[in-house]
């Protein structure tokens, strides 16, 4: 099972999530930034709520991978080792 300190460590990691997420910007005002990964993923998922397509697992996996890569890059973590 979990060892000691896991809870505090995971909470520390979680505390840094917002700033890391902010580095993967969505569309700001009307500017379309080149790296608007969050927006691309969001748009992909939201599109299923309006059109007839049903939301299935991994429907927007490409956009999510891009978002996750950006998120991990924000702190210099390696996408391969999945250190979030």
């Amino acid at each position, binding site marked *: 099972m979990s060892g000691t300190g896991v809870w505090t460590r995971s909470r520390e990691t*979680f*505390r840094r*999530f*917002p700033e890391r*997420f*902010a580095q993967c*910007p*969505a569309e*700001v*005002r009307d500017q379309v930034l080149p790296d608007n990964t*969050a*927006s691309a*993923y*969001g*748009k992909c*998922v*939201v599109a299923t*709520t309006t059109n007839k397509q049903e*939301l*299935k*697992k*991994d*429907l*927007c996996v490409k956009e*999510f991978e891009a*978002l*996750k890569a950006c*998120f991990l890059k924000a702190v210099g973590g390696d996408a391969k080792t999945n250190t*979030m």
Partner: protein
Amino acid sequence: MNTVVRKSLKSGTRVLIPRRTGSDRQVSWRAGINAFDRQVSSWGAGMNVIDRQMSGRAGMNVFDRQVSRGAGLNVFDRQVSSWEAGMNVLDRQVSRGAGLNVIDRQMSGRAGMNVFDRQVSRGAGLNVIDRQMSGRAGMNVFDRQVSRGAGLNVIDRQMSGRAGMNVFDRQVSRGAGLNVIDRQMSGRAGMNVFDRQMKRKQRKWAAALQGSHNYDYLRDEVGSRVADRVYDIARTFPLALDVGCGKSHIAQHLTKEVVERLVLADTSEDSLNQRRGCEIPTRCVLADEEFLPFPENTFDLVLSSMSLHWINDLPGAFKQIQAVLKPDGVFIGAVVGGETLYQLRCSLQLAETEREGGFSPHISPYTAVSDLGNLLGQAGFNMLTVDLDEIQVDYPSIFEVMTDLQGMGESNCAWNRKSVLHRDSMLAAAAIYREMYGHPDGSVPATFDILYMIGWKPHESQAKPAKRGSATVSFSDLSKVGHTVAKETP
């Protein structure tokens, strides 16, 4: 048993030392054979004992420190085996009788697994779990006392909403088929949505946080609005009760002219210790909202702010509030309801569907406006007023929403909650939340629908519907309102 005679060095008297059968601390070599530590287990066939180690196999049993007698007894010390029926645990005490299953502190979700701690469980078919509950039928719990007789199911402090599960605490239950409930109600099926123990722990944790006052903004706001409604009633209340008061957010806005004495009731001692100062003399009571320890017809005013949405039996709680009120007393409450946090709920739902293929509820269920009116009416309140207030709070992202909810002590404690929220799903939900509901500057809103309710305990002085046939004006006269009537001068 073989005995060994040994000469004592000093006095030369004979000393008889019984030698144990079986190896000490070693597990026996064949299946269904036994190992033991410290105590002899040599009676009865089919007794298997392992010290501290667990076996997942059927018929393997563990005990520590005590002899286990009788056939079919399985005991574990602190470890649970849950995949075989008939695995039982016991700690410290002898378990006698056949078919006794005991697990110390750990629960198994399987039928036929029983737990007890500290006491002997006698009789067949006794299932006891110490402090932990299993939602399955046939699982029973007790703590501290012997349960005698067959078919007794007891749960210490925890409730199972399932039929056939019974609770008691501290007392021996004798006789077959006795189901006793202590402290917790297993009154109606399906009325156990929230884990109240967990909610107590969450409130305690939130109150102990370093910057816990930072999360009080919502409660303070709602408390001030409830206090507004108290001022709207032009009366002085000699004795008032605040149910689920938290840090007493309402009383800080009230004055001695409106409320003369106040009783604060909450389940969290730490919150009461950190209560806000107010000029009204107060008394604090540690009480659960579902089990108010006050006599009937005591209070002129009962207040409640943002705590009733974690109650399992809301109709029962309303009835109790109505009972403790004096006739012509009033209940003013604010509860979170309606479409609260719908943005968070939808984002998590979509994110989990896309990332994991399915979703589970992360937001607790709320009462709708219409239901609230019905509930109050059923509880016996008169002259109801229910209105809805929408408070929207903006946050930088979904992570702040979740952190603040946790800091407020509003973490989910429903039984059906999933204990894990994957990081991928969190990241996905953050993106979806921003995309669906985000403001142009990147911040996201979270909506809290607060339902305010006012209900009066019936009294003769209150206005009643008029009797049939007592009208003095006709409805057709309504059309004449606004017309100038020409007076005929005689």
